[in-house]
């Protein structure tokens, strides 16, 4: 009798382990699928991330690092992407939020935690690569606030007022009004050197 009971318990135990393993393998295969899907989508839209990085961290020695931080936070936020909007719209929202968040958190630090050049392996600047026009545009954009930068990049990347409104969190009409002001401001900066 005891022998039978032991046999039943042992079988249950083995069954439980097998079920657990199946569950874990199942969720692991789902994880791998999701990861591959994410990597493919990022590869497809990598240009967006580089553009946002350049917009907020142009000539910043930690630009590559912030790019990595954006990727990591996109990956962490990916489960919340529910296909309700286009992937690029979601990507813009998360990446812009991350870039702005990095800048804000930097200003909260008593001093910027810096890694040495040796530690971080920062390449020396290569003069002559950047054109005047590119620098001029980035310097002009740099005079805008973080939110204004976000609105202008969305416009320059051919997003509609509706999409701009959705990413920024304002109405379509309001997006149009803000955008016109920012465009005029930017043009004035480009023409006069400052607003």
């Amino acid at each position, binding site marked *: 009798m005891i022998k039978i009971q032991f046999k039943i318990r042992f079988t249950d135990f083995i069954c439980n382990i097998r079920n657990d393993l199946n569950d874990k393998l199942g969720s692991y295969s789902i994880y791998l699928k999701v990861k591959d899907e994410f*990597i493919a989508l990022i590869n497809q839209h990598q240009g967006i991330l580089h553009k946002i990085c350049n917009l907020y961290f142009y000539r910043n020695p930690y630009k590559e*690092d912030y790019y990595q931080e954006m990727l990591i936070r996109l990956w962490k936020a990916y489960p919340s992407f529910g296909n309700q909007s286009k992937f690029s719209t979601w990507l813009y*929202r998360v990446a812009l*939020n991350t870039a702005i968040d990095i800048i804000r958190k930097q200003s*909260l630090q008593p001093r910027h935690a810096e890694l040495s050049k040796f530690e971080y392996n920062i390449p020396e600047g290569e003069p002559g690569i950047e054109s005047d026009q590119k620098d001029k545009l980035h310097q002009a954009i740099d005079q805008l606030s973080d939110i204004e930068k976000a609105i202008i990049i969305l416009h320059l990347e051919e997003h509609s007022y509706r999409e701009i409104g959705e990413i920024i969190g304002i109405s379509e009409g309001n997006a149009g009004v803000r955008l016109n002001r920012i465009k005029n401001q930017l043009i004035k900066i480009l023409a006069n050197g400052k607003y």
Partner: protein
Amino acid sequence: MENIDLKMMWHNANIQNLEDFSGETKIEEIIRMNHSKVTAKVLSDIKLKIILYSTISAIYFGLMFYAFVYLGLHLSLVSILPLSVVGLFLITQTITEINRFLVFTKNTDNLSLKESVICFHRKLNRIKTVDFLSYLILLYLLAIWIIRGYLRDIGGFQNLSGSNAMQTFILILIVILFLIPWFLKYQNNQRYRKIDSSLIESMKLLNDEED
């Protein structure tokens, strides 16, 4: 026309920019990490400080408890004063670092930009309030403790005399303790003034109705 020029400039600038990011990005390797190098360094610095301050605080307060409660040690005010200042420093540093850690680890990436501005502003206000309240409570408690200790040392209110140098010193110290939290509040407002005004400006920009 101006619009087309802006787009053209942006397009040309990005052709060069994308060429600058020449290295192949190893996405799989990157997403395996918890944070990038700089962020990880900032967070590990904060964590280290939290561990350091909380460990020293635990040892310090453990020793104080052992000495004053278990052994029933009675010290004069002059001896207690430096001990309480050390304790105060440890507590406020621990609170500040924990507060900073919470701010650095909480993200609102999935929200719209407007909502995340509002969230961050709320968070910043919370940091300032927690900082102010923790200093206010601790310093006021310390002041009360000093008054109580001094009165006990001299044997009550009836022995207070206006001409005593020690009393003048204690009075100045208490006034300073009562004023420090307000001074720190002012200093905090100055420290966060730039980011605070930028957040308010952003909120104003996003809140304005179509005009």
